[in-house]
């Protein structure tokens, strides 16, 4: 695999795991809640083995999602995406500093040092490259501030 291919693969993994997969779960949850009525939701057969505390959290979250109007839902969507991007940015900055100073967490790729791929970064940093990767590989648009 060429360095360029490795570069793209790394970007796809980071975008998927730090952003898209998580945001997709959230979107699925909220869209489900908005797709049925409260009555329909509570008539749905319950799993008797499911932990009661989990069930209570789900029910309260359903009620909350249902209560949101479109404007509020849009703001919540942005907030969730912003949190994901900021988590990604912060963790990648920590990795960047660890990579340079060799005193914090670092990243390996395919069991090897990341340097070869790192040298391909147009921004020169993990967190800077995140902006390019989400433009190329994310289903959910640009970095959310």
């Amino acid at each position: 695999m060429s360095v360029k291919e490795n570069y793209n693969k790394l970007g796809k993994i980071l975008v998927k795991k730090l952003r898209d997969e998580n945001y997709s779960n959230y979107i699925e949850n909220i869209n489900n809640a908005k797709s049925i009525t409260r009555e329909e939701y509570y008539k749905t057969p319950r799993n008797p083995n499911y932990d009661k505390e989990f069930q209570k959290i789900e029910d309260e979250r359903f009620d909350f999602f249902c209560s949101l109007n479109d404007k509020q839902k849009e703001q919540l969507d942005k907030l969730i995406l912003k949190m994901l991007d900021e988590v990604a940015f912060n963790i990648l900055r920590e990795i960047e500093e660890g990579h340079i100073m060799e005193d914090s967490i670092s990243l390996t790729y395919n069991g090897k040092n990341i340097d070869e791929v790192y040298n391909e970064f147009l921004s020169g940093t993990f967190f800077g490259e995140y902006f390019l990767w989400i433009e190329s590989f994310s289903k959910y648009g640009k970095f959310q501030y």
Partner: protein
Amino acid sequence: MKNIYKKLLLILLLQFTLNMFGQEDGDVEQQVEQDEFITVANGDFGDILTSTNVSSCGCEVPDFTFAWGSSSALNMAFANDQFLKRAKERALNTWYDRQKNEIVKPAIESKLGKQFANFEEAKNALFEFSELKNTEVNSISPKSKYATLRSSGFGKQRSDLKKLKLLKHRENEILIGRINNSSYGDRKVDGTYLKDIKDLATLRNKWTPLANEFAKNTASTHASNYIYQKISSLGQGFTSETLRLKNNFYNKFDHWDKLNFMQFLINYEELKKLSRPPYAFNPVLAKFINSDMATSSLIEDYAIKNRGGGNSIFDSNHWTTLMKDTLDDLLDNTSIGTSLEADFMTVYFNVLDVNQRIWMDENQNKVKGMHAVTFAHIMSRGQAFAYFFYNEYLKPDIELGGRIVGLIDELKIYDYHQKQWLYKNTTEATNLIQFVNDNKVGGNLSAEAKVFVKQTIALESILSNQFEIKKTGKIPSELSSCCPDYVYSENDLIIQEYGIEPIQAAVDGVFNVLVSSASVIGSEEWMGRNIRRVMTQIGLTVPVDIDNKYLAALYKIRKRDGLIIVEYRTGMLKSMLDFGLSTFDIFAFLSLSKGGGPVLAAKIGGRITVTNITAHLRKISIDNTKITNLVNSLKNKAKFDLLGTGEFKNVRGHHPLAKSAFRSDKFYDLKKAFSISIKRLDEIKVGIHAKITGQQNSLYSAFSKKGEVLTLDKMAKIEIQAMVNAGVPKDIATGWVIKSLEDLKIQGVKIITHIPWNGVN
């Protein structure tokens, strides 16, 4: 007393050595007398008899001594001879028996590493050993003689057969009435063109003396061949014969000289181990001078008399039916060209073009394939289809082959590998033929174009064959009087002049002309392709998205110290090293995926050349004046809020001048570069760093789209704007950028190699 006599004995031995050659009998006798005089007084010189070579039996004559592995062996043999004479005079039979059984036999056993039941067995073993060694040495000369005779004989045999085959072929043509238009009319037999032999009488006049000469040579070569084989493996019979002769020689002596001969032979064989014939000899021992039996003449005579192979059919002095039949069989299996298949194709399809026939001769496997297909078609679908198939599919290849031979002939290419490359790479060969035709004026190829084509073929051939990677160990010519930064380039394979040394052939002396000839046919693509091939072979990874013409613009191929190297075109190296750039950095500039290549070309004036690139490098360079001027223009708008700032290694966080802008600059150290801690940034607004980074991405990308060169002042402007847009007060942002600029000056950074987030600058 003892020491005095020991010294006298040593002086005597030394004198024997000095007089070893060219002594007259009188001198020898005098020496013997002196020796006698010294040792005769046995009663007085009892001390000598206790030395190591003196018998412990109480006798007064010393034992034989042998010089193992020593060049003084002949002196030892002489000294032993003197001891024996003394013993013989006094009839010391006990001494004799002791020498024979307790000195000579053990000496033979020691020399041969083997025990023997009695003296006779030991003696024969020594004789056999001696003669095997003689055979080994003395068979070299006759073996070489007969190797030459049989080799030249076989060569002449082949040559004569080809001539006879041509005459036979011509005979058939005359018999069927094909007097003119002979298939091989251009071939000569003993000075006469085949086309000029038009009747059978003329043909016979050529045939008869040639056939006689062939017979005579074949018979003598037959004998030489078998004599050679016999000399190469003389066998046990020869060993027995030499043993017999040696015993005859031995048995001529009385029993005292037989013993003398044995001590002589042991020492003589030691001498022979250390020298080559003719061996040194002491005249006193002249009676043993002809003791070597396996001489060169004996070996040759023995091989002649005992060779295998019997008589050659051609031994007879007159032609017989058997000779004629044998010659016919030989001619049936003799080809006019290099194979019978090529002969068949030539005659069957009437290939008259000389170059096409040469191509068939030099491309045996292809012709054999053509022959097999033709033969199969004749057998299965008839002659008409075979002709159709030939004209449609085989003839074009043979005609192209003929044109390639024509090119080889015109360019005077003699190198086997170069010819093979042309034969194998017909597309490239066709292009070169076209090039040659296009560059002819009045039917003549220009000298420049000729050199270019020849060197093209030479390079292609070298790259297609075996070679070694070496380096010249020299400094590139351009750097001979400059550039102390050269030391940074120790891992740069181009600057270190790594190159290719062909194993089979040398690089032609005019190879460098190739460089200047590139413009002859506008062959940038060819040049770039081969620059890439050489670079790859020496171990450089050349990105695939670098266009060959860009490589050709900046590099050239040349010969230096017998190596084919790639070097920078004049002007590039000084500029590169001035800015601390390496070949990999230049690759980045040329690589499309890194934002270089066509984008760079457009930015620097539409064409990548050394001049444009070096001018561009000057444009994106940084120096103290540029930094000072920029700082002066900004400082009135700045506020130096430096709490939580410092070197990156201490405070981490944000580089106010994006570090990727200087990624290929050797002097930039991002760990020491000015930075602002995250804590300080968060004091302005939590999470602001991500916003600043996003703004950098947006602003640099927008700038890059304009196709401009990123200079220091434009970079400072973008960086201040990125921070301001994220919420940093402008005066503080300006102060941080100024601190970063001053840091660049301290570090000695020289160039903005990249536009952050957007590839090379």
